[in-house]
């Protein structure tokens, strides 16, 4: 069969294909190809899920903040899921929250320019939020209290950081989670400063917790009753010293690979931390030394 007449295809096929393109590709290319693709590109259903990241190519060419606003406008209030990598600002976050009452998942990665107040203000506009994922992004403990008050459906919270100081211990975040996020089912606190005090409070305050990721939260010392309680209560538990394959945003891993030249032997070298038995204590100190030397 000869190549099909693409512009005459049913719009649902064009929609299925364009759905697989990222926001930047749709706005810069697909919608300009032909009127059918443009109509499909402008449908609010195309913008229920937006994922935009600042890459070397897109960041230099395009004003991503402006593009993101445009994408949010196109969703016409139907946006349910947004992921922004590294370019979100206070203004943009507020803009999104004021226009997206249906938002159920907000994921910010490497967004250092967001102030705690802006995050708090935005969360007040998101009553249907179920998942809040903050990875290496600026954060204020007030945001947790806001979630408790304004986002009653929250069931998944990630507060991950790959910048950590093993000397410093702080339970403020953990205690705030325990006090305000009682409906949590999934919690990731990768590289958190909390201690056993914080962990105990979380176990008490979040009775529905099914998965808990404590990797690199090395002030937690899981022994005795606390360890038993964790293993009993949590179906999917990742322990502080379960150093595993690289986390998607874990830049330190790349540095480590360059220095130690182990990238080809990743599978042999790293324990796969899918279960508590995969703990690899021998390896972890070496890892820390390399990062902090």
């Amino acid at each position, binding site marked *: 069969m000869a*190549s099909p007449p693409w*512009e005459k*295809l049913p719009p*649902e096929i064009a929609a299925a294909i364009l759905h697989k393109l990222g926001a930047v590709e749709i706005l810069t290319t697909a919608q*300009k190809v*032909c009127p059918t693709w443009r109509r499909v590109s402008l449908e609010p259903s195309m913008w229920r899920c937006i994922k935009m990241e600042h890459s070397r190519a897109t960041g230099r060419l395009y004003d991503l903040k402006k593009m993101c606003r445009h994408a949010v406008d196109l969703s016409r209030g139907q946006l349910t899921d947004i992921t922004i990598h590294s370019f979100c600002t206070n203004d943009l976050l507020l803009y999104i929250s004021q226009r997206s009452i249906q938002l159920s998942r907000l994921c910010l990665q490497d967004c250092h320019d967001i102030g705690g107040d802006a995050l708090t203000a935005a969360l007040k506009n998101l009553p249907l939020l179920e998942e809040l994922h903050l990875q290496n992004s600026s954060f204020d403990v007030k945001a947790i209290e806001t979630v408790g008050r304004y986002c009653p459906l929250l069931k998944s919270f990630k507060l991950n950081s790959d910048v950590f100081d093993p000397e410093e211990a702080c339970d403020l975040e953990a205690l705030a989670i325990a006090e305000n996020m009682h409906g949590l089912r999934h919690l990731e606190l990768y590289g958190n400063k909390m201690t056993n005090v914080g962990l105990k409070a979380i176990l008490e305050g979040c009775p529905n917790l099914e998965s808990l990721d404590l990797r690199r939260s090395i002030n937690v010392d899981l022994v005795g009753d606390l360890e038993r309680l964790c293993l009993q209560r949590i179906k999917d538990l990742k322990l502080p010293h379960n150093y595993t394959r690289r986390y998607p945003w874990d830049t330190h891993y790349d540095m480590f690979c360059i220095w130690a030249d182990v990238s080809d032997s990743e599978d042999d070298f790293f324990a796969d931390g899918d279960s508590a038995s995969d703990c690899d204590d021998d390896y972890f100190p070496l890892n820390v030394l390399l990062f902090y030397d």
Partner: protein
Amino acid sequence: MAAETGTPTTLTLKSNDDELFSVAESAAILSVTIRNMVEDGCAGGVIPLDNVDGKTLASVITYMNGISAIPADEEKKKSYRDKFLSDKDFETLADMVLAANYLNMSCLMDAVSAKIAQVMEKKSVGWVRRKFGIENDYTPEEEAAVKEEHKWTFEGVETDDDN
């Protein structure tokens, strides 16, 4: 005629260029279109599939058999789909997406759409038009409106608008 219970049932599918294919019903009903025909009792004889040619149908049946042999393990199914599509050229992908849509096979549709979208990544508008054989049938007014909206490019950056 309703399918008999107990014994594996085989269906006969006919492509639009009159090729006949035998396929296990359990695999064929991955297609919602075919499943509906079976449930409506229309599958006793030959099932004509007017929108799919023999070459494409053979390929779809290979997929049906392969994927239905994998137990409920989404990882394995995904890796089968990836492998199945890895050697398909663009024209074949185009035929597959039409067939998947007609046969109402959402998983195949999803995978082929993603593969076609991959082809478009980081390409210019002109390149996509040529590759997809799409005429630039914008009216001048529409074309102007599209360009007018294109204001998020940083100043001084050359874009590959069209060619």
